[in-house]
């Protein structure tokens, strides 16, 4: 529990150096920031859209050589709509990077399971693992073909590293038809030997993957999302059990999730502290 590093948690304004449409509802926003560019996969930032809101977002691209980082954002509400209207050269504020990161030490052969914008933190993870010559089975899920996020980027990483990519869409418009968790289950049942499963995406999907990892006795890490305010471990908005997602997470191990299994995948607290279904 290292707490807030004063330099990191100070808000900096940065100019967007590029804005890229990834799908019809998802855009990536690149900005220059030394601290963010040196972050580890899994860490997040608080992005301030001046005059509108401040929201937590995973870092989806880390380039320490260029001093650049990015966030990848789905248009879902007022804040993300305002961000989607922004163009290259516009100013946002960032605080962070905050939180822990995925554990990559001792990962020899891994399974990465991502759905929706969960790919934001998993893409830089795959890039880091590929550099360390880790063998990767990447399971990429989406509702439909046009929602597939980072398909080309992940294919590229895996083709260089020699990994396996399994794409699953719920409507079968691309790759296998069904839920990505079913594809994961099939691989594990076929005896795919992995020593780590990483996942990020809808919480019910992550909960399903947690149960699979428990069943097949595989180490497990999931990156959780909760409402956040302070991001420095004070306000208590993002707590799950005794953990603060902003400080003790956002990445949690299977062991930690076992401790909060009555809460994980079931409910979370709203901004008013009341429990709502996940």
């Amino acid at each position: 529990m290292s707490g807030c590093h004063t330099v990191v948690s100070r808000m900096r304004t940065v100019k967007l150096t590029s804005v890229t449409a990834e799908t019809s509802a998802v855009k990536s926003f690149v900005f220059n920031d030394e601290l963010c560019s040196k972050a580890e996969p899994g860490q997040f930032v608080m992005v301030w859209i001046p005059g509108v809101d401040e929201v937590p977002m995973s870092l989806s691209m880390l380039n320490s050589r260029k001093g650049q980082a990015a966030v990848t954002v789905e248009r879902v509400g007022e804040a993300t709509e305002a961000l989607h209207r922004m163009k290259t050269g516009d100013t946002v504020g960032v605080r962070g990077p905050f939180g822990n990161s995925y554990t990559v030490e001792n990962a020899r052969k891994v399974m990465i399971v991502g759905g929706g914008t969960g790919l934001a933190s998993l893409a830089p993870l795959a890039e880091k693992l590929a550099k360390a010559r880790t063998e990767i089975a990447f399971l990429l899920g989406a509702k439909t073909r046009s929602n597939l996020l980072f398909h080309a980027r992940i294919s590229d990483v895996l083709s260089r590293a020699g990994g396996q990519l399994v794409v699953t869409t719920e409507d079968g418009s691309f790759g296998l038809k069904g839920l990505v968790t079913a594809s994961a289950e099939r691989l594990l049942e076929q005896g795919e030997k992995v020593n780590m499963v990483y996942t990020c995406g809808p919480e019910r999907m992550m909960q399903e993957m947690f149960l699979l990892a428990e069943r097949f006795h595989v180490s497990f890490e999931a990156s959780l999302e909760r409402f956040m305010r302070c991001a420095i471990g004070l306000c208590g908005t993002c707590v799950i059990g005794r953990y603060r997602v902003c400080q003790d997470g956002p990445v949690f191990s299977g062991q930690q999730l076992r401790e909060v299994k009555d809460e994980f995948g079931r409910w979370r607290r709203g901004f008013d502290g009341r429990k709502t279904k996940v």
Partner: protein
Amino acid sequence: MSSRLTVEIAGLRLSNPTMLAAGILGLSAVSLREAINQGAGAVVSKSVGLKPRSGYSNPAVAQVEGCGLLNAMGLPNSGAGHFAEEIYELKRDGLRAPVIASVFGFTAEEFAEASRILAKAGADAIELNVSCPHVKKTGSEIGQSPRLVSEVVRKAKCAIANPVFIKLTPNVTDIVEVAEAAVEAGADAIVAINTARAMAIDIETAYPILANRIGGLSGPALKPIAVRCVYEIYEAVDVPVIGCGGIATWQDAVEFMLAGASAVQIGTAIASQGLGVFRSVSKGVDTYVREKGFRSVKEIVGLSHRR
């Protein structure tokens, strides 16, 4: 921890004089229990009103270089009815430290009703928040008037048998006058102080950083102001004073106790030190008390008032 550190405040027994300040983490039973497990001598919940509130939009927190933190959460809480369940859950399995529920209301009657609900759920004491500096018609708008403070305390005292603490705002001309009004109306302890009204502006975009524009300043910049408030209040009233404002080390805690605080509340420092701050502060205070030749931490309370 040694018995040297035991303190008593309005009948509550604390194993050490450190407390979790209101507004920090205290939304859930598990968070409050964790603070106790990590060494807090008592915990204060987040402020709870009668109805659920989502609070303000983000940014709700901004760091101010060299000073501390600005916040304008806007009193988010689940409402006394829901929060009563958290208190009940917390107290059900037994605890080694008292739980104080912080409450707020828009009228004296609301303060009293929220106090009644949470006392009934098991809170050992109530802390009246008449000092939140950024929500209209409550908090410091009440705490700036000795007459309103007196009314709020009186109604809360009528509603419950438990001790009633009151947390005061530094945003007044004379904090002693307010403390005296509270004690005269029956307050069992004074908590000094809540945050100071403050703001920060981003010079690149010209926007105030906090969504609410104005918030409250906590952390190191507040400490000398808080020490002065504790010192002045201690001289004027005969109930225990609890210090709050910028406490991050055992030296800070000792300074507050010498000024007259029977216990200290810690909040902002948790951002940099985690919940381990309670143990490190109480350990340091214990060593200080021993090395100075005192038998109990109680002997240093108000020591700086001798002339």
